[in-house]
């Protein structure tokens, strides 16, 4: 059976010949019509449509967007801020980059509709520092939209106005965590805030109610206004609605981005048919389904899941639909949509050493378990690769990881311990054997990973 077709909604014009990132091109393609439609609607009605649509956040946590908007404190009398999380930095994720560089007005229209719906007068786009061109493109696009009365005071002849400014990060992964991002936007070190009491919806930017949404999520809002919440909810699968962009990297023939209805394509179809299967002469060994902090899946393992009627079904890795709920039921997550594939040339100790180096570098250092734990996990896996490895290192790694998750202010604690926990749980044999295998001849094509 051939793999299902892509459904390009957000990426409709990405890499399309002749499509440019200026306002004229966007308007030629029907741009800003949905903002016009939105300002003729009651703000509460738009929030209702987003709730009906069942849109879940595309940044990593998959939290329902309408619910997030519903939590905003609207009685405080303080201004409400909208902060766009464009700090795309979860390893394996590369979707927002294309939206901002090639179709910035789609994002701006999504921002303005969401701002109108939530009575936001000031929005900030927090773009990661390593995208200087992206920041310039967005600034240019905002200026164009302002000149055309889509952004700024009294938009489209209404009494409503909202300004958008671009704010650049400076190379810290933790700024993708929403309260860390808010601290950074306030000009400080991005130390995440403790919740409660600092829920952004109540005490966010400048201690005012704040909505933090991912770039892709805000783009979806435009399409929800276009088709209506009920129609949007029919795309995808129940509780996993709409489309999402799957970013595939690593050992496949055709890496890249693919937009599918959520849950309508399986991991097997995605990797074997859409991405052309493994590299010549190789076999798939493992896949991380939702950015590098998601727990790894080992090809060959199976998952026993309960059906609604109480019966059970058994899924292989290839059978898993690429949605939020089934991936969670399989013990991992859809996360940010970053699918990282590893074939049988990869030694899992070395792959984990690479990931651990990332998290040790990126821990903000605020909470002791994470600061020390991420560093120790890095030290252990680096020692295993470059110095002496011991058969008991896997157990040692697990004991460190088990003391981090749940003991930190933010979810980085989980993000940094899940790779170690899942690698050791699923490839424990490889960790035990590593003292012997590390000196054996490497498979041809094997590369240094750390």
């Amino acid at each position: 059976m051939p793999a299902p077709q892509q459904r390009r909604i957000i990426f409709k014009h990405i890499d399309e010949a002749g499509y440019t990132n200026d306002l004229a091109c966007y308007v030629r393609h029907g741009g800003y019509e949905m903002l016009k439609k939105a300002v003729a609607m009651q703000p509460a009605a738009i929030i209702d449509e987003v709730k009906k649509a069942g849109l879940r956040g595309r940044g990593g946590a998959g939290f329902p967007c309408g619910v997030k908007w519903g939590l905003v404190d609207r009685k405080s009398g303080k201004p409400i801020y909208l902060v766009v999380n464009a700090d795309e930095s979860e390893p394996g994720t590369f979707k927002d980059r294309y939206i901002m560089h090639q179709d910035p007005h789609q994002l701006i229209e999504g921002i303005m509709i969401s701002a109108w719906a939530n009575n936001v007068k000031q929005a900030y786009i927090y773009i990661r520092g390593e995208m200087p061109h992206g920041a310039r493109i967005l600034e240019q696009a905002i200026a164009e939209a302002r000149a055309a009365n889509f952004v700024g005071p009294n938009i489209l002849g209404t009494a409503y106005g909202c300004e958008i400014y671009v704010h650049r990060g400076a190379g810290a992964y933790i700024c993708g965590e929403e309260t860390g991002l808010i601290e950074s936007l306030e000009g400080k070190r991005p130390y995440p805030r403790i919740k409660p009491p600092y829920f952004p919806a109540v005490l966010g930017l400048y201690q005012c109610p704040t909505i933090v949404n991912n770039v892709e999520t805000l783009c979806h809002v435009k399409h929800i206004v276009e088709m209506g919440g009920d129609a949007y909810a029919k795309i995808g699968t129940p509780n996993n609605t709409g489309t999402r962009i799957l970013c595939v990297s690593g050992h496949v023939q055709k890496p890249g981005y693919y937009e599918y209805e959520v849950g309508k394509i399986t991991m097997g179809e995605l990797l074997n048919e859409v991405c052309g299967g493994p590299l010549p002469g190789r076999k798939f060994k493992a896949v991380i389904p939702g950015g590098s902090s998601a727990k790894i899946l080992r090809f060959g393992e199976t998952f026993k899941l309960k059906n609604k009627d109480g019966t059970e079904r058994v899924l292989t890795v290839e059978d898993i639909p690429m949605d939020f709920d089934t991936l969670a039921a399989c013990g991992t997550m859809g996360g940010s949509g970053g699918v990282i594939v590893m074939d049988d040339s990869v030694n899992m100790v070395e792959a984990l050493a690479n990931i651990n180096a990332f998290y040790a570098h990126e821990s903000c250092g605020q909470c002791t378990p994470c600061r020390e734990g991420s560093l120790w996990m890095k030290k252990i896996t680096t020692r295993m690769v470059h110095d002496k490895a011991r058969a008991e290192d896997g157990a040692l790694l697990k004991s460190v990881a088990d003391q981090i998750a749940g003991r930190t202010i933010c979810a980085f604690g989980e993000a940094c311990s899940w790779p170690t926990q899942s690698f050791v749980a699923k490839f424990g044999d490889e960790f035990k054997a590593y003292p012997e295998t590390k000196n054996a001849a490497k498979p041809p094509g094997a590369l240094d990973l750390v």
Partner: protein
Amino acid sequence: MNLKPETLRRIDDVITHYPVKRSAVLMLLHAIQEDVGYIPPEAIDWVAQKLELQPINVYEVVTFYPMFRQKPIGRRHIKVCRTLSCALMGGYKTCATFEEEFKTHRGEVSPDGEVTIEFVECLASCGTAPVVMIDDDLHEKVDCAKAKQLSDQIKQAAAQRR
């Protein structure tokens, strides 16, 4: 500290973007680093004064965020992605190629002053791994051959300047 008039204009403009001046710290530091090439010690006092902060409030930002540097670097900044997707496609070999081409080590200024090579974490372009940023520009699928080609371009530009 002698900032270009254009930089000063950008700085005064960007401060107006925030209801609280302190928010502009990162944007001011970016503007200064683009102008001067790094964050000199006097910039910390200058930014603090400009935004009505204590110098420590600026210093703690400079020392936390990896993109800010307190020392000059080579004329061109080569940032090779180190993270998993790029490493799986040969990122370490790419980095080694640049190091050999410029006879230098990561984190150092090359002997001819032309480049500083660094490993950085995920650049969010994993589908076209391995990726490299040279100054503001992203280069995709940089295998050893392409790394050599990019190195040659930098060397040629340097030769023309001399």
